[in-house]
């Protein structure tokens, strides 16, 4: 289990937990950062700037502070759903049914 800030870009991860109970944590949950859903860090702005995070149905710009943590784990792809060699990018596409 790792935090959202540390994962590589363009790889889908599964959200395990959003810790913290302030307004920020609440808003994150309302935007769909809930356990079990998939998220991908699309890009990170340089010099410690925000990151763009794609959820299944929407995309947000996000910069977290130390009081809120998003814990994620790697997504294990079902072998029979995705052929070996298919790019990870395709997996996210399948997971975003209506425009992200």
């Amino acid at each position: 289990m790792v935090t959202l800030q540390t994962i590589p870009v363009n790889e889908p991860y599964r959200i395990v937990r959003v810790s913290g109970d302030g307004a920020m944590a609440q808003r994150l949950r309302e935007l769909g950062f809930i356990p079990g859903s998939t998220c991908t860090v699309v890009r990170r702005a340089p010099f410690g700037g925000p990151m763009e995070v794609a959820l299944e149905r929407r995309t947000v710009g996000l910069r977290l502070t130390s009081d809120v943590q998003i814990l994620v784990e790697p997504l294990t792809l079902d072998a029979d759903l995705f052929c070996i060699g298919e790019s990870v990018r395709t997996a996210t596409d399948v997971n975003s049914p209506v425009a992200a």
Partner: protein
Amino acid sequence: MNRPIVAVVGTPNVGKSTLFNVLTGLQQKVGNFPGVTVEPMVGSVTYDQRTTTLIDLPGIYSLAPTSEDERLTVDVLRGQHPSIERPDAILLVMSAVDPEKCLVLYSALAGLGLPIMIAVTMVDAVKAAGGGFDDIGMMHELGVQLYPVVGRKGLGVGDLTHALSSQAAWNVPMAPLSDAASIEERFAWAEKMITRHTSPGAPDRATRRLDAALLHPVWGTLIFLVVMALFFQSIFTWAEPLMELIELGIAGLQSALESSMPDGLARSFLTKGVLGGVGSVIVFLPQILILNLLVTVLEECGYLARAAFLVDRAMGLFGLQGRSFIPLLGSFACAIPGIMSARIIPNYKDRLATIMATPLMTCSARLPVYTLLIGAVIPGTYLFGVISLKGAVLAGLYVAGALSGLLIALFLKKTLFRGSVVPFLIEFPPYRLPSLKSVGLTMVGRSKDFLRTAGTVILAFSIVLWVLTEVPRAEIDSSLTPVEAANVQIEQSLAADLGRTVQPIFAPLGFDWKITLGVLSSYAARETFVSAMGQIYAADVEGSDEPLREVLAASMPLSVGLSVLAFYVYALQCVSTMAIMRRETGSWKWPALAFAITFVLAYLAAWLTFVLAS
């Protein structure tokens, strides 16, 4: 139900305001509720002689508010707001592109016991991507009426208007979940509804590709700088022909009055007091309109959220976050809408710091002062043969204002509003074409506001100043030319007495009594400086073809001109801005502090400039 009130509710970025604009058209105004810091728009829809009142409430995600404007919506919906009546029903706006958040919100709203109707926007976008949205199926399962609309094209609006006024279309739904349901349970329920009633279309590759370029650290930043350059460039170049047209029209009116009325006080009052005063301000209507047009278009097409992302890191240098960019950018048009849009910043301290910086962004009211003074005192030479010195000075004034505003925010964040680092969170809406009608209606609303100020506050001050310059009447030697006669009159007027009394305060800055009087009159609204200078220098006296700029060029030294410019960069000379600061912060403390800080800075900057330049 007699004149039922319907609250228009939705999550942010679903096209709620566009739909509200399309439904109510020109039948809308800012709601006037006592003691309300957030002013919702109120409009009306009439169908078959039945009128329904619509109130456009700020967007919410749930019934647990995290900011001021969300609290307003929740209080109103629960019937707990002290001055806004509880609505009779809810029109929920859902985006077909992202119905999940909206269903989550619906699951909470359904427990309020109010009748609900749903308007589904952007169904066309889903269909175009090959997806499906089964509105009938969802309608049956939810137990409320559901109307697909394409706000931008006006499709389905007729049906919705009809439904709004027919009682049979309103149902109080059964809440699908208990009020105590967790956010996870609500998402699980929404997910079930979506699987059952929608089918996914192709992913929005256009938005993804655009983001890859527009959010790119290098290309995105370059594009951002180009957009900002075009933004400011177009405000000046597009507005110019329109401004000249208005000036011609006012000059025409003035000369028509001059040739049709006998010389005397009445004519002077109409041409100088009324037309001169209001005319010199109405000239700026095109600039204000274009600036508002550009901000609205950038916001509606989805770019403003990306711009906030791009500048978040840079804003962090000043203790602010990306969202602060939106109120600050708006303040280049006018600090009032800028301060109001600071509500999108959830944290109170961050919002305050941003609000305190807004009056230093160069608003369009400063522009006429800058244009006049730069035109008068800065030589029309070119730097390196290409850059106009006048243009460079203007750009310098904009940068000085913006940078100083940000430094004030930083100073406040380090002292009064000390706190931890601010987080940043903004949703990226899919890119879309803005609705012409919605943008147009926003324009009309803004120009009405502006003209109301010009027609009341500025007219009143212009008349007061006219009286001060005409009283007491001086003995005019009949051998004097009209220009000389006007100067004799001014020198002996009450205005001159007033200017001379206050002038010692501004003497270290190089201001004479005429400039002092102009600066004093600016404390009502900055742009009155131009009309005041016109009256004081008696430039538009009959028989004198010399425009005000030339008169100033002849009588104002460069050092004084620069000193006045420096003063205007900092001074908070706008009663309306202070009033709105008071309203948005809930205390006179903050406008008073802003006034004090900016006055000290203005005085010091003008003094330094004067000393260095002379």
